[in-house]
């Protein structure tokens, strides 16, 4: 296979895929309307017919792997199936073509969806209120940490530090740093939970918050959650919940009841809105009663029978983005919750947890488990047995899975597990798919022993192999030049 041409290389002068409507106002030379000094001469965009554009992007799509292509057990990312009806529902012009400044009386449908989604999230997570404004999980985290900072600012306390466990997502420390907090790390114990002793030692009155993911990134529920909340609250701190793993407990427990003060929810994970090859996501942030005043504005409220946007909240942190949030993502999540209802959501969590434990049980004889206990929605293995025996690394096995037709799991995360393999099957996969995946993993474990080179040199079946990441970083080429 040869290089795939860039769209610029396919360009031919004079072609276009779209005709501009004719000018129906009196023709005046452009220079009379805008002085020449403001106008540009060169603009390098590709010139192609519509068919050529369609073929180009169709060809690119065939070089991409999505949930619809196959099993995508990317740990921590919750790559579940995205029901097609939700994609259809959002396509109506009355949703799609609504300007954000459309008068509220003409936007009651959209406002209602936001208002009700807010209430659903409050109920599902046991929080007092939610803001739907953040555009992604990390944006929700940032919003949460801004709330935290404002809260202590208002109390006249200068708390300069936050704590994160050594299993935390990288976004947790990064979001905290954007709010000017120092970040200190709390160790995990031998069971894969946060070490209570270390937490007690670290948790002082200088600490604003503990950012905790529960279940944590080992896929394990923090079973000492009550003690953890207690340790944080006794010192006046905030317990922040990273809701990235909420798929595990929907309908079984609620972060608000567990003692969390703030939580962000990733609608593109838990509530099945598509990931869009990297985005758009949506990261609503929920808070306990004492933090409601600090939520971003505007907020959607109901006054009698009408819905409205309000931004008159004196203690708000302010706006965290333009307009109101990623509305079409909110709409999909709303439709998802309406389709499943309470029982459906509880079944989601049950099936997700069963699927992960099934993989854990079936693969346990072949791969080492750093923490051997029931997991929640994902399970984390280590590839150290294979590395020791034949020099085959987790990265190699991940690439080899591609040859078997699967998207690799998350690898080398969480950081405390050497050669980590983090598998999240989600609830939407059947036992047959899980069995085929297990057979592939077992076969790779055997290959690692018997023909390690086959694994080390994988993948064998993709259009490009062994891309030189060092070269890419050393001589960055981030845009094509003719």
């Amino acid at each position: 296979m040869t290089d795939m041409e860039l769209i610029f290389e396919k360009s031919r002068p004079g072609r276009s895929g779209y005709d501009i409507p004719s000018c129906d106002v009196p023709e005046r030379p452009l220079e009379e309307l805008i002085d020449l000094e403001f106008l540009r001469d060169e603009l390098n965009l590709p010139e192609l017919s519509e068919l050529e554009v369609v073929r180009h992007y169709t060809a690119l799509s065939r070089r991409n792997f999505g949930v619809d292509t196959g099993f995508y057990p990317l740990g921590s990312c919750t790559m579940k199936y995205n029901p097609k009806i939700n994609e259809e529902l959002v396509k109506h012009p009355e949703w799609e073509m609504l300007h954000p400044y459309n008068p509220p009386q003409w936007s009651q449908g959209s406002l209602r969806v936001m208002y009700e989604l807010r209430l659903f999230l409050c109920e599902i997570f046991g929080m007092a209120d939610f803001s739907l404004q953040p555009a992604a999980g990390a944006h929700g985290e940032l919003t949460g940490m801004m709330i935290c900072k404002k809260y202590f600012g208002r109390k006249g306390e200068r708390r300069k530090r936050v704590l994160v466990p050594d299993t935390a997502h990288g976004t947790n420390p990064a979001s905290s740093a954007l709010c000017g907090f120092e970040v200190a790390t709390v160790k995990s114990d031998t069971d894969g939970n946060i070490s209570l002793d270390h937490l007690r030692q670290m948790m002082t009155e200088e600490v604003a918050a503990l950012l905790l993911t529960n279940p944590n990134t080992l896929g394990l529920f923090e079973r000492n959650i009550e003690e953890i909340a207690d340790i944080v609250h006794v010192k006046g701190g905030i317990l922040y919940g990273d809701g990235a793993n909420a798929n595990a407990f929907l309908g079984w427990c609620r972060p608000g009841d567990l003692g969390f003060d703030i939580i962000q929810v990733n609608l593109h994970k838990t509530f099945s809105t598509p990931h869009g090859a990297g985005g758009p996501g949506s990261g609503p942030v929920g808070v306990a009663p004492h933090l409601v005043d600090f939520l971003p504005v505007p907020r959607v409220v109901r006054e009698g029978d009408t819905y409205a946007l309000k931004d008159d909240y004196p203690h708000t942190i302010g706006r965290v983005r333009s307009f109101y949030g990623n509305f079409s993502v909110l709409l999909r999540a709303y439709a998802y919750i309406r389709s499943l209802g309470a029982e459906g959501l509880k079944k989601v969590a049950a099936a997700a947890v069963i699927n992960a434990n099934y993989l854990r049980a079936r693969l346990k004889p072949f791969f080492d488990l750093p923490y051997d206990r029931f997991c929640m929605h994902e399970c984390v293995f280590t590839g150290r047995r294979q590395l020791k025996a034949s020099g085959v690394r987790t990265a190699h096995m991940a690439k080899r899975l591609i040859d078997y037709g699967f998207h690799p799991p998350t690898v080398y995360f969480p950081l405390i597990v050497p050669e980590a393999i983090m598998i999240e099957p989600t609830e939407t996969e059947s036992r047959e798919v899980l069995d085929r995946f297990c057979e592939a993993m077992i076969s790779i474990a055997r290959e690692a022993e018997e023909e390690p080179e086959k694994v080390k040199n994988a993948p064998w079946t993709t259009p490009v192999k062994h891309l030189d990441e060092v070269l890419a970083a050393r001589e960055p080429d981030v845009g094509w030049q003719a």
Partner: protein
Amino acid sequence: MLTVIGVERVEELFSDIPLHLRLSRLLDLPSPLTEQELTRKMEAIREGNRLPGLCLTGAGAYHHYIPAAVRHLIGRSEFYTAYTPYQAEISQGILQAIYEYQTMVLSLTGMEVTNASMYDGATAMAEACLMAIKMNNLPQIIVSRAVHPEYRKVLMTYAGAYGCEVKEAPFGGDGRTDLRALETLVGKETAVLVIQNPNFFGVLEDLAALCQLKRMKGVLLSVVFTEALSLALLKSPGQMGADLVAGEGQSFGIPLNYGGPYLGILAATRAFLRRMPGRIVGATKDGEGKRGYVLTLQAREQHIRREKATSNICSNETLCALAASIYLSLMGKNLKKLAELNVKRAHYLMKRLSEIKGWGRMFNTPFFNEFVMRTPNSREVMERLQGAGVMGGYPLDGDYPELKGGIIFCVTEMVTRREMDWVVSLLERG
């Protein structure tokens, strides 16, 4: 499956959750709906929305035509059901598309480096300011009051949390940022000047003079845009000498969506490459020397650098970036013609509205497709237009009390001469 796991009941798998903290009831949510019922339900809710017969509002979100091929292609589920392309070998499709997108952004903005997208224009602007603050190691940002009010509010939120200072620079009687006032505001602590072009009033700023000022004062200049289509026609911020460019790409094939998802665009000079937030796609070679694409410079990012990362961005708006690149590929050189049509139609409406008794232009300065009219009473005008199913412009009274009666009108290719004549006749009736 439970037998393989070694449990009898699913509840055993949830045994780590302390019993008394488990939810002993079902969640209080509406009953589940089948697909057919859901469709009915959503239709009923949708009835609460009403599309205006005609939209004359821009102010950060623009009603442009979206060619059918854009929607069709971003609906390919190999794209929209994928995650961030961590596994390059099976993600060459989106990686190449984003590399092409980055190339188009560099061409439009005239800058040297960019990324795979930001959340929206407002957060892109805020992150550009933080880049400047860190680059110059100075604590102050000066932002023009002619920058979109919501963008300035987002900046205040980000700056407040990060701990830097924001000062606002006034605009003059021509609707442009007041250069003389700006000059006196810039001090030893100033890291960056933030200017929108075309600005919130639609007015073209004097970028040449601003660049001269920034060079003289030794500060950075960040140029912001909300109407990306203007880039097709106007000298690029890069050509003029901007250090950072941040803006909203919604005009390029992304539906209005009641405010999101949109497309944050961020570009900069090469000096900022390793300070860029978010994902960056780079070209490289594979083991056989074939061209390929990867997420690059990941050492900047949160999953590697954690609290020392250049930003916390993980998810971005890739699918919107894909829509924009498909849109721009379809348009090609016609993008410039489309921009011209916007200019001509907008100038037509401006001229016709100026002829109405009691109306006048607020600022007599060149503009792109938005302009401010001084009306006798903006509320009355908006109500009269709404009565006829028209979404008038953006009234300025709330954000700019000194511009009482002012309304920003926006005219895109979606508004025909006949519709404009009709609107004028509605307003002329007094």
